[in-house]
C-alpha cells in the first residue's frame, strides 16, 4: 500500500463528502426487480449451477417467504421493499476466464479510485485479492501462488462448479438457511462471494483479501463467504467494503461462515465503510449481516471489525466454541455519525470444556446517531471451566447521540468465569482545550483521542488495514464537533 502521509490526511479532512462516492458507468446486466421462485431459478441458471444448488436456494426461498423481518434490534428504519430490489447485477463485460489484461479499463479505473488497483496489488507482496463488484467476482489474483500450497481461494460461484464436494458439505452448516430472515434471503439469492479452503497443516503465506462494492442503483448485494481451515492450518482473511453514495437506501445482506477444524486458526478482519447516508440522514446502505464461526477442538477464531459506514447496521460476528480448549475473540470498533444507527456485537457460545472467549467492543457515537452493543455470552451445561472476558467502552461526542449496551449472559455451568466491564465517556471540552493548548487543533485532537480510545482494537488489525482504518475513523468523524 502506498505510504500515507500527514498531508494526504489533511487533504482528506478538507473534503467533507463521502470519499468513495463515485459511480462507475460500466454496462451491466441487471435482473428485473422483485423476488419469486423464478428469479431464484434464474440466478441459479445464470450462474450455471448444478441442480442441488438450485434446490438448496429454492428451499431457502421457501423458508424466507414464511419468515418475518426481525424488529428486536435498537434501530429504526423504513423496511426495504423486497419486491423493489433487483437481485442480480453483474458488470456485463466481466468474464472469469479472461486474464487481467482483458478487464474493462473502467473497472480497473474504479479499483484505482478505491486505492486497490490490481496492477499495484500484483506487485504487492502478501495480499491476494478477490474483488467482488456488485455480484460477480471480477478477478482473483495470486491464485497460482496459493494453489501450489493446495489453498483454494476463489469466487464461491466457481467453488460450486469446481469443488462441489466441499461446498455441499459445509455450506449452511454454521449459518443454517432458517437461522434468521436475512440469512434465509441470502441463501436464496446470493450471487457471489469468496470461498477459501486451507488444507491440513498449511499456514497461508499471505493475507487473503476481498473487496466488496455496491455499484448499480437499486441492487442488493448478497454475498456469501465460506472459509474452511482444515486441521492445524492458519489463515488471515481481510474484507473491505465501500459503496457509491446514492439517495435511496441499498440493501446488503451477507452471510459469512467460518469453520476452524482441530488446531486451526482463522483471523477475519473487516473494514466496512458502506455509504452511511448524507448529513440529513438520506440514503445509505442497510447492512444486515450474519457472520458466524465454528471452532473445533483447540482451534481459534478471531473477528476484528472496524465499522464506520452504513445507514443501519445489524451485525453480530459470533463464535460457536464447540471443541474443547477452543478460543473465540471479537474486537470491534463501531463509529456512528449524523443519523447512522448501529446495533452490533457478538455471540460467544461455549459448548466445549475449557473454552475461552474475549470481547472488546469500542463504540463511538457522534451527531444524532445511535450506537448499540448487543452481546451474548452463553455457557452450556457441559462447558466446564469456560471463561469469558468482555469489555464494552462507549465514547460520546456532543449531546445528541446515544450509546447503549445490551449484554446477555446465560451460564448453565457453575464453573464458568465471566467478567464484564463497561465504561462510557465523553470527549470533554477540557480534553480538547488541553490538546489545543499544546498546539493541536480541534480536528486533530479528536482524531488523537478517538485513536487512543480504539487502540486495543486497531492493534489487532493487519498493518495495511490499520492505517486505512485509522484514516476512516478520522474521515467519519470530521465535522462532528460543534
Amino acid at each position, binding site marked *: 500500500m502506498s505510504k500515507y502521509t500527514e498531508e494526504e490526511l489533511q487533504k482528506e479532512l478538507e473534503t467533507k463528502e463521502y470519499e468513495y462516492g463515485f459511480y462507475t458507468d460500466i454496462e451491466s446486466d441487471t435482473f428485473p426487480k422483485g423476488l419469486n421462485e423464478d428469479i431464484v431459478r434464474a440466478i441459479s441458471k445464470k450462474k450455471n449451477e448444478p441442480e442441488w444448488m438450485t434446490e438448496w436456494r429454492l428451499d431457502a426461498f421457501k423458508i424466507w417467504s414464511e419468515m418475518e423481518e426481525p424488529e428486536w434490534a435498537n434501530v429504526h428504519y423504513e423496511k426495504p421493499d423486497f419486491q423493489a430490489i433487483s437481485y442480480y447485477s453483474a458488470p456485463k463485460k466481466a468474464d472469469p476466464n479472461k486474464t487481467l489484461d482483458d478487464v474493462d479499463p473502467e473497472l480497473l479505473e474504479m479499483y484505482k479510485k478505491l486505492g486497490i488497483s490490481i496492477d499495484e496489488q500484483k506487485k504487492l507482496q502478501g495480499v491476494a485479492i478477490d474483488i467482488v463488484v456488485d455480484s460477480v467476482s471480477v478477478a482473483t489474483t495470486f491464485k497460482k501462488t496459493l494453489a501450489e500450497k493446495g489453498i483454494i481461494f476463489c469466487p464461491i460461484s466457481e467453488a460450486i462448479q469446481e469443488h462441489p464436494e466441499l461446498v455441499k458439505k459445509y455450506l449452511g452448516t454454521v449459518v443454517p438457511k432458517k437461522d434468521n430472515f436475512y440469512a434465509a434471503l441470502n441463501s436464496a439469492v446470493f450471487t457471489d462471494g469468496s470461498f477459501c479452503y486451507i488444507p491440513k497443516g498449511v499456514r497461508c503465506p499471505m493475507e487473503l483479501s476481498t473487496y466488496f462494492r455496491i455499484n448499480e442503483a437499486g441492487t442488493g448485494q448478497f454475498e456469501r463467504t465460506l472459509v474452511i481451515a482444515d486441521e492445524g492450518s492458519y489463515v488471515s482473511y481481510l474484507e473491505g467494503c465501500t459503496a457509491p453514495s446514492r439517495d435511496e437506501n441499498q440493501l446488503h445482506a451477507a452471510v459469512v461462515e467460518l469453520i476452524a477444524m482441530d488446531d486451526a486458526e482463522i483471523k477475519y478482519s473487516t473494514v466496512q465503510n458502506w455509504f452511511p447516508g448524507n448529513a440529513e440522514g438520506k440514503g445509505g446502505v442497510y447492512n444486515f449481516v450474519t457472520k458466524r464461526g465454528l471452532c473445533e477442538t483447540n482451534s481459534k477464531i478471531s473477528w476484528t471489525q472496524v465499522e464506520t459506514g452504513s445507514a443501519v447496521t445489524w451485525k453480530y460476528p459470533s463464535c460457536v466454541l464447540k471443541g474443547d480448549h477452543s478460543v473465540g475473540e471479537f474486537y470491534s470498533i463501531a463509529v456512528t455519525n449524523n443519523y447512522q444507527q448501529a446495533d452490533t456485537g457478538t455471540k460467544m457460545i461455549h459448548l466445549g470444556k475449557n473454552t475461552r472467549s474475549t470481547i472488546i467492543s469500542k463504540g463511538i457515537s457522534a451527531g444524532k446517531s445511535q450506537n448499540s452493543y448487543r452481546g451474548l455470552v452463553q455457557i452450556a451445561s457441559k462447558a466446564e471451566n469456560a471463561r469469558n472476558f468482555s469489555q464494552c467502552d462507549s465514547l460520546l461526542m456532543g449531546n445528541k447521540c446515544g450509546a447503549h449496551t445490551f449484554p446477555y449472559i446465560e451460564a448453565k455451568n457453575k464453573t464458568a468465569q465471566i467478567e464484564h466491564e463497561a465504561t462510557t465517556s465523553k470527549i470533554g471540552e477540557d480534553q480538547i482545550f*488541553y490538546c489545543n493548548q499544546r498546539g493541536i487543533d480541534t480536528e486533530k485532537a479528536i482524531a*488523537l483521542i478517538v485513536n487512543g480510545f480504539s487502540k486495543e482494537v486497531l492493534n489487532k488489525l493487519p498493518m495495511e488495514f490499520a492505517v486505512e482504518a485509522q484514516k476512516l475513523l478520522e474521515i467519519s468523524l470530521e465535522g462532528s464537533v460543534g
Partner: protein
Amino acid sequence: MLHIKNLHAGIEEKGILRGINLEVKAGEVHAIMGPNGSGKSTLSSVIAGKEEYEVTDGEIFLNGENIEELGPEERAHEGVFLSFQYPVEIPGVSVTNFVKTAINETRKAKGLEDMPASEMLKKIREKAELLEIDRRFLSRSLNEGFSGGEKKRNEIFQMAMLEPKLAILDETDSGLDIDALRIVANGVNKLRSKDNAVIVITHYQRLLDYIVPDFVHVLHNGKIVKSGTKELALELEEKGYDWIKQEATI
C-alpha cells in the same frame, strides 16, 4: 513579551478579572500569588485562550501583537505554554505520541516539516533525563493513573519538549512532595533563558525558594493589588493575605 492592559474577563456574565495590568519581559520570572478565588487560574486560562471565558474589556499583547482573535492552538504556536493545575487524561495516547503530535503540529503551523524521528528521540531522551523521568513512563497513556506528582512532572516535561517563549505554571507545586518539587523547579530553572519568560502561579512561598522570581504580584478580587520583589512573597508567607485584603479595601 507579554503585555496585559486593563483586562476584564469572566465566565457566563460573572466578572472575575477586573482590570489586570501586567508586563512581563523576556528573561523575567513573575510570581502571581493570592488567596483562593482571587482569579489566578482564570488569568492563566484567559491568556491561553480558553473559550469559555469572555474578555469584556482590555487587551493582551504577545510580542507586540494583540492576541484577542487567536485560538488556543494559535497562541500555543506563538509560544504560549500552560502547565495545567489539573492535567486531563487521554487514554490510549502515550506521553511520547502526544508530545510528538504537539511538536509536529506546531512545526506544521510554522510551515516546517515533521521533526526527524532521530532528533525527536534524542530530545525526548535528553529532557526525560533532565526531569529524572523513567523511560517506561513515556509509553504510558497520558496522565492515566498518574500520581499528582507524575502529572506535574509530565507537564514540565512537555514544556521542556515544546520550548515555549512564555510558560505559565498554574499551581505546579500543588500535590508535589519536596523531592518532586526540587526536580520540577530544577527543570524549570534549566529551561530559563534571556529569551523566554515564566509566570508562576502559586499559593505558597515554598516553590519560590527554588524558582526565584524577579517580581511578585498579589491578586485579590480580580485585580493586582500589590507588586514587589521576592521579599513580598516572604512577607505574605509570614503574615498571610488578610493585611493585603484590608489594604485593598481601604
